[in-house]
């Protein structure tokens, strides 16, 4: 089996950010392991196009650019932001017309939405939420967590085409030099996109707050019922601010109305894998662990030395959050200013 890899990357606020670098870096690594080449595909406006050469730093040589306005004009409508059904069709058609049979993309909200459609369009095998991709005897094996991270499976693929979604924040962006990628515009008419492909459109995007979202943060400070009331979450916010972190919460405090649902980490909230997760006054119920156990470094602060959170913590202090959090915030400010 010979592979030709296509990395689909998204931009955010018209710039490429770490999810794009993660996907390109992994495509670059796989291409060299499989002795093949890879190209990048992206969809955006002119600003995105101007930012595309930066992907060369992570090993991309060619970025194929689809102009979002040209794509949207195929819908016959104008009052919408983008259409995920059309995105799926663009990627599937571009891949099949150009012979790409291994598609990598980020497991972001958009990626998780379009990848199942792409896999059906390409009659492909699909692995969502991959945390590792290996080549064994020339075959691709992809590892993904199941049962909320309590175990994992290694998957092999039966179809000629393969789509793999990469769990965000797990694959490392690897700078391979200071090269600038060549950007090539895709002729929209070559992609066979029609108005029916815009069956679902996004009319508007509402940003919930200016705050960093847990799903995107590299450091998260979370608070639970141990904080005793919503008025004490300034302790969590202050520590988060000193670390440049996002604030998270357990379900207990979200259900109590102390914190917004968007902050909830866990099985019914968000799944996160930051490089540092600080759990404060959180017992570590299995449903909470489901959302954060793949964090690289876990720190627990809890007054109960037997709290389950300590079993998965890399570091921790047994003690009172009301004493420890202010002291910790001060100490971090101190070392950061040095």
């Amino acid at each position: 089996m010979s592979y030709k890899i296509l990395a689909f990357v998204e931009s955010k606020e018209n710039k490429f950010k770490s999810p794009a670098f993660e996907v390109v870096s992994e495509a670059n690594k796989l291409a060299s392991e499989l002795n093949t080449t890879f190209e990048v595909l992206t969809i955006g406006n002119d600003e995105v196009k101007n930012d595309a050469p930066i992907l060369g730093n992570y090993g991309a040589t060619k970025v194929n650019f689809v102009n979002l306005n040209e794509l949207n004009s195929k819908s016959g409508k104008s009052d919408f932001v983008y259409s995920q059904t059309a995105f799926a069709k663009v990627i599937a058609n571009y891949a099949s017309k150009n012979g790409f049979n291994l598609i990598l993309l980020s497991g972001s909200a958009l990626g998780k939405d379009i990848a199942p459609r792409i896999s059906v369009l390409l009659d492909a095998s699909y692995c969502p939420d991959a945390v590792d991709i290996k080549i064994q005897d020339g075959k691709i094996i992809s590892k993904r967590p199941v049962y909320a991270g309590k175990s994992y499976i290694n998957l092999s693929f039966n179809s000629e085409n393969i789509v793999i979604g990469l769990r965000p924040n797990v694959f490392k962006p690897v700078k391979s030099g200071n090269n600038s990628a060549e950007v090539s515009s895709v002729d929209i008419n070559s992609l066979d996109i029609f108005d029916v492909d815009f069956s679902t459109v996004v009319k508007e995007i509402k940003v919930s707050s200016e705050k960093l979202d847990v799903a995107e943060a590299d450091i998260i400070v979370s608070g639970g019922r141990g904080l005793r009331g919503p008025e004490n979450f300034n302790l969590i916010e202050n520590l988060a601010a000193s670390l440049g972190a996002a604030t998270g919460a357990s379900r207990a405090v979200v259900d109590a109305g102390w914190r917004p649902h968007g902050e909830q980490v866990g099985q019914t909230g968000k799944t996160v894998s930051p490089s540092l997760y600080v759990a404060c006054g959180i017992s570590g119920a299995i449903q909470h662990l489901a959302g954060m156990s793949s964090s690289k470094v876990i720190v627990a602060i809890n007054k109960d030395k037997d709290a389950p959170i300590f079993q998965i913590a890399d570091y921790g202090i047994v003690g009172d959050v009301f004493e420890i959090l202010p002291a910790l915030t001060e100490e971090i400010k101190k070392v950061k200013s040095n």
Partner: protein
Amino acid sequence: MNIIVCVSLVPDSTTKVKISADNKSLDPNGVSYILNPYDEFAVEEAVQLKEKNGGELTAVSFGLDKSKEAVKKAFQMGADKGVLIKPDNENYDSYTVAKNLAEYIKSKNPDIILFGKQSIDFDGLSIPNMVAEMLKLPSVNVVVKLTVDGTKVTAEREIEGGLEILETSLPVVIGTQKGINNPRYPNLKSIMASKSKPIEEIKPTYTGNKTEIVEMALPAAKGSGKILTGGADQVSELVRLLREEAKVI
């Protein structure tokens, strides 16, 4: 309104995962199974749509006999009919499930098809949109608010740091997320009434997985952590460890 809700039976989220001797599956001994929590939101939304618009609600599950429990829970919450698509064994992947659900749904021509956003066993977040693409239907997943007005559909879906407001039309596939509603507790009357409802069994029309599990395993155990027991006095030691050893700050 002709409504279909797809429901899945999954191990309770508190299940201690043990691996079977084949190294490819969950050891079912001692596992208790529940209706997938996200599917409860889907059933509730379906029942509310039926209450508002009239019509019929069918709950469908793909799985072995035990999956009837998921359909029964849907009965208790208000589903009218139940269907089990029953394969010969448990070796099926998301594609096979999606393909069979899609074939069944196609034969029924529903106005709306509801799913949970994700099953909590394999966490795929993929079957709703796979089914939608197989049926060439619009879809919105991770929905926290749904409005159906005539054939016009408006949905709010969660994304990183916010919400997307989407517009589409019936027939549509919707995947539900926590927040969309509060699933009802079945009352005694509905529990009793649901007992006599039959579940239609049908054979899969498609077999032929696109992925194979080559291994299932437990994550490598974490080395025991450094837990400091000296309270606030050890804050500077913690920060030192995070800087010098873990190198995360």
